[in-house]
């Protein structure tokens, strides 16, 4: 029988399928952090007993966890376990769906974003989101897409061209689009569109970026570019990423949370979770025995 640890090693060996080793987003060793760091890194967001419903169906059943500042937190779990629902609760997007309900507390810098007087619109500009399917605005050019979050909200942008270049550069898209900034956002390929959406979210300089399976529609090259950018922007902003791909979680994240049927089963340092999972369910899932 293969242990979870062996499994993890096997997986990380084959992690960069189609991507040469030296082009791998980054070296795993760089990312290893010692526990002294952990103690210092403060929680950017703290979730307390979060429950979420669609109508009568309870999808998230009381989850508590803390998202470390300027670190990448991955959320894994089988399809339908509520990963998307969970992160949509973190920027108050869940309640946008008719019949959707939330209870519990989500502290962003020690302020509960579900408190009555809090305006969800303000929260969403501080906590950005990238969706599973790329959704650029089809009626806007690439440039307008990038600036949409600011411009449409009436924010004066002192140097728009510089901002566009900066965030497209961060999203690893600048080189491909710098000559076609006036083309429609919908004219790009799927992977480019996804990076455009990331750039659009970054233009608002969010404190937290939520990414819901950002690579699920992408090929390995585009995926590795996005992983690279997660690695680099993960230094300036806090990232929560949902992924189906355990190698990806292992490659990009510092912490990993394993969800199952709407509950948080295990939450730990990524290395520990993948090498020495504390729960049988986690081990079964990461070794591919179910899910």
């Amino acid at each position, binding site marked *: 029988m293969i242990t979870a640890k062996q499994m993890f090693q096997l997986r990380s060996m084959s992690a960069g399928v189609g991507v040469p080793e030296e082009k791998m987003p980054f070296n795993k060793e760089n990312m290893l952090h010692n526990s002294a760091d952990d103690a210092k890194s403060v929680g950017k967001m703290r979730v307390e007993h979060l429950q979420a419903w669609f109508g009568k169906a309870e999808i998230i059943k009381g989850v508590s966890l803390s998202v470390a500042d300027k670190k990448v937190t991955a959320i894994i779990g089988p399809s339908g376990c509520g990963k998307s629902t969970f992160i949509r609760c973190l920027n108050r*997007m869940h309640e946008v769906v008719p019949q959707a309900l939330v209870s519990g507390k989500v502290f962003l810098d020690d302020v509960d974003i579900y408190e009555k007087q809090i305006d969800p619109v303000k*929260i969403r500009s501080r906590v950005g*989101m990238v969706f599973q399917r790329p959704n650029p*605005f089809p009626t806007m050019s690439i440039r307008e897409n990038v600036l949409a*979050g600011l411009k*449409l909200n009436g924010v004066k942008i002192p140097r728009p061209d510089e901002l566009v270049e900066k965030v497209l550069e961060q999203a690893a898209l600048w080189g491909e689009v710098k000559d076609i900034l006036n083309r429609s956002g919908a*004219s790009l390929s799927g992977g480019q569109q996804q990076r455009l959406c990331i750039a659009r*979210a970054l233009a608002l300089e969010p404190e937290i970026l939520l990414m819901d399976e950002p690579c699920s529609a992408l090929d390995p090259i585009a995926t590795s570019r996005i992983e690279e950018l997660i690695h680099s922007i993960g230094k300036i902003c806090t990232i929560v990423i949902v992924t189906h791909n355990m190698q990806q979680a292992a490659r990009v994240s510092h912490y990993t949370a394993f969800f199952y049927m709407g509950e948080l089963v295990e939450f730990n340092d990524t290395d520990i979770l993948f090498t020495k999972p504390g729960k049988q369910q986690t081990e079964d899932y990461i070794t591919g025995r179910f899910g």
Partner: protein
Amino acid sequence: MGTRVYRKRKCVDWVMRSWCIVATLFAVVPLFSVLAYVFVKGIGGLSWNFFVELPKPVGELGGGVGNAIVGSFVLLGIASVVGIPVGVLGGVYLSEFGSNRFGKAVRFCADVMAGVPSILIGIFVYTLVVLSMGSPSALAGGIALSILMLPTIIRTTEELIKLVPTSLREAGLALGMPKWRVILRVVLPAGMSGIATGVMLAIARAFGETAPLLFTAGYNRFWSASLDKRISSLPVQIYEYASSPYEEWHQQAWAAALILVLIVLILNVSAKLLTSSRSHAR
């Protein structure tokens, strides 16, 4: 066995297809003959002067429908200024917030209104506007046409906005835009080409309407001086000419009808072009 079934299917296919073709011909032939007839009868009366001159009294030769053409466009302008914003915003309301009782009532009214004979709208505006203003006017006519356009605009807007994918709205919301701004800046533009088509079709329909204008805009042999005065329009002018006993006026009516048909045709075609150019844009 296989070939037999196959042959039978081919046969059925052939019969059904011929049937459809015949039915289509039945539908299309009258349509084209009307167009052709209007064309043949009207083309002789067309000249430059016909487009720019005022109608002449009976017995005098020449004269045109210049004032009626301008009048039609003035009426349409008023109708659009009133009807398009109200209709589009109404459609937005229905699609975004219209799942309650009130929304259902509005939707039902719009559907009923779409089927109401247009003369009723004329009578309605007559009682409400013309009686209080004292005489038929461009304003009253424009209002009547706008009411005529409303149901089409409301319902097409609603349907097209519903077609805009949720993912786009969510993209807007997730960027920290308030809902109304998402609707205005993201959802409406995304549905715009379709809405524009709906609006153009509504305009084209309103352009040819006579009944609502008879008592509201009235008839005027001269250039209309202001919006609170009677104003001529192509359909009413045609009605005047055609219902007169004079042969030369009948000729004029055909020519005016041809102009009307051509303008409606142009409106329809531009609605089509609008759709295709937007959807293939960039």
